[in-house]
């Protein structure tokens, strides 16, 4: 079983967001992590490999620092990594997916795993777009996965419950929390990861140029939201406060 896992490096969930002099989101001083949903994807890839045998390749589009996220995946147990550095190109989801699909089409794959959403500017579309480009089926927001006889049987979350879908392989599956508990890299894993292959590519190496990946969506402006202001703390004994709160919700906030 050849498994490719899409891994994005994102800002830490605690990161404080500021704008730089150009009015764009500044990444200086921000600590970076592997997108939490991609950890589920890596873990699932490793579990399938452990059961079925095979190989797990982790792939990221990002700057050189994204090697850290890939190394983390290698330390968890992935076999090799591919990093495509987009250089100065401005990417949207269309562009990122085009690059990922090109990099993957150079590999052998039976299964592609990703997160259902990146927690930064993520929009829950890159993995699905990759499936569409490669002309393979996708199942999103998956919380349970079985691989058997060239098929994937995936349980996915819906708003009203869940559903179980079967798709032929190769397929793209995106992970939702609940799929598994990602392992922590062991000391030994971290040491081993240093020696595992990290294939660094440029867009030119993939035969892509700016024209082929020119973004469809253009960001026009960034801003920081008005911070919410603290409101009233309602004084008094519980009974009195509860009565006052009920009144305020109806008469002042007019929300009930």
């Amino acid at each position: 079983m050849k498994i490719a896992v899409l891994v994005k490096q994102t800002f830490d969930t605690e990161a404080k967001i500021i704008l730089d002099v150009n009015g764009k989101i500044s990444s200086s001083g921000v600590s970076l992590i592997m997108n939490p949903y991609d950890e589920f994807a890596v873990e699932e890839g490793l579990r399938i490999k452990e059961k079925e045998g095979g190989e797990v390749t982790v792939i990221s589009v990002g700057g050189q620092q994204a090697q850290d996220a890939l190394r983390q995946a290698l330390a968890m147990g992935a076999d090799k990594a591919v990093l495509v550095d987009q250089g100065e190109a401005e990417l949207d989801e269309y562009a990122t997916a085009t690059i990922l699909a090109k990099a993957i089409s150079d590999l052998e794959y039976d299964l592609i795993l990703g997160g259902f959403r990146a927690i930064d500017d993520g929009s829950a579309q890159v993995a699905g777009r990759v499936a569409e480009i490669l002309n393979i089926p996708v199942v999103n927001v998956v919380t349970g996965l079985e691989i058997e006889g060239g098929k994937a049987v995936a349980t996915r979350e819906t708003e009203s419950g869940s559903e179980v879908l079967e798709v032929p392989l190769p397929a793209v599956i995106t992970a939702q929390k609940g799929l598994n508990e990602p392992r922590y890299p062991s000391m030994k894993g971290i040491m081993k990861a240093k020696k595992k292959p990290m294939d660094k590519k440029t867009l030119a190496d993939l035969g892509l140029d700016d024209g082929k990946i020119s973004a469809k969506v253009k960001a026009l402006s960034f801003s920081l939201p008005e911070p919410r202001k603290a409101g009233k703390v309602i004084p008094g004994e519980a009974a009195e406060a509860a009565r006052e709160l009920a009144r305020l919700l109806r008469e002042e906030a007019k929300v009930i």
Partner: protein
Amino acid sequence: MAQGIWVFAEQREGQIKKVTFELLSEGRKAADQLGQELCAVLVGKGVAGMAESLGEYGADKVYVVENDALENYTTDGYTNVIAGLIKQYEPAALLLGCTVTGRDLAAQVAQRLQTGLMTDCTGMEISGDQLVFTRPVYAGKAIVKAACPEARPVMATIRPNTFAAVPNAKQAEIIKAEVGPGDVRQIIKDIVRQISERPELTEADIIVSGGRGMKGPENFKILEELADVLGAAVGASRAAVDAGWVSHSFQVGQTGKTVSPVLYIACGISGAIQHLAGMSSAKCIVAINKDEEANIFKVADYGIVGDLFEVVPLLTDELKKIIA
């Protein structure tokens, strides 16, 4: 030239989702401003009867695609239909609700049509002659305005509760379209429906949420009683989910659901940044917490410093009196 604003009319089991009416209401304004028509696309099995209700919220036309194989949503089936219709009629824009289905469908359709998609939007405006969308990013810590200047249709998914659903009665022209679901690779093996009398978390007007302060699963009963009085959904913090008190589908936050209710009542929740990420666009936030230093009070419109086991039942009683 591409013409017309389209809204994907999401329905499930004979019910149009509220977000569809919200998108039609706002889409109506945009269509009028741009001098274009507003169309809804309704897909499913035996759904034609719902088409008229889409006119009641402003649709000029409703394209209806009926097929037994479209009874339940599948990624391929719906993508084939929607992308097929778009190729035929070439609309300028397609709006969908940012729901599990809307998100799934939008990404596939956008890629099939080689166009841009802005997801989880909380605003739409017209600038010049193009639609500009507002998206919270980095868990709501920044806001980006973005557009898709060239590729058509412009696509966006919009968070439920962003726009008001305003009736704007039109006699919609109903057009039966013949597009097949094609080859569907996702085979449905089972559908499990959680029977709930409550609204869905992401669409609810009011949410009552509990955190670690609830102390155990049995205590969520007092939140349910409050939710019953308000017709609210019940949510939870990750701490409550990780403790196994409620299922992950209840989780609100950066790695849970993003909600935009009119009223969010946080009980025994400290207000960690990852929790706020999922609910800070609520119009009114109420916090009930025994720690007056809790971060949640920094964002709450109304707070009560007290023991939730005492305050919540009292609040339920008070609201019963008012609402009854």
